[in-house]
């Protein structure tokens, strides 16, 4: 078994601020993902990485940067937070088809 840890759990930012979310996994999985979840909508893929130092854009990559510094960690940066933005950012990892998710970071922009 393993676990995915996301920090912080809650993030409050100001409009225009650059914000960084972190994810760690101890499954030893090769592939990691960042999703955005808005209320009433499904999960939308922002970035994924199939190995260390690899980055692939998802459908929602505009306004975000990502970094895969090592196999176990994957960071996401909101380059300029949008006023009144509220969403949950979910990190996941996989080897093969099954994706395992972390508990999420809840972002609120004032």
């Amino acid at each position, binding site marked *: 078994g393993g676990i*995915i840890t996301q920090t912080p759990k809650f993030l409050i930012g100001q409009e225009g601020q650059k914000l960084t979310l972190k994810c760690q996994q101890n499954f030893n999985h090769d*592939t990691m993902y960042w999703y955005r979840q808005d209320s*009433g*909508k*499904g*999960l*939308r*893929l922002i970035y*994924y990485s*199939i190995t260390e130092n690899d980055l*692939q854009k*998802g459908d929602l990559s505009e306004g975000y940067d990502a970094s895969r510094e090592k196999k176990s960690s994957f960071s996401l940066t909101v380059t300029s937070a949008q006023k009144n933005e509220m969403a949950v950012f*979910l990190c*996941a990892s*996989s080897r093969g*088809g*099954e*994706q*395992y*998710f*972390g*508990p*999420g970071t809840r972002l609120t922009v004032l």
Partner: protein
Amino acid sequence: QQQVRQSPQSLTVWEGETAILNCSYEDSTFNYFPWYQQFPGEGPALLISIRSVSDKKEDGRFTIFFNKREKKLSLHITDSQPGDSATYFCAARASSGSWQLIFGSGTQLTVMP
């Protein structure tokens, strides 16, 4: 373009009833369909999955029925329990070489005691 659609958006059943959650897709190359269960404040957790070579997958009280010709599948939860109250997401992935899961918008299930 929404490639995976779920209905209903919300569903309420009584304890002991069978809940039926529906999912449809557009891309005929999709061949793997996981269902995820999400409780408030938590990330989604894989509940059950099916590959397109099968028409049925059962795991305890949870059963997926799959109709490849109609591009539809459904999740049946028999003997529903209040603890099953959660949001359920249907997802799909194309044939080998694709890393992406495409998620539906979810069905919020409430089981009344």
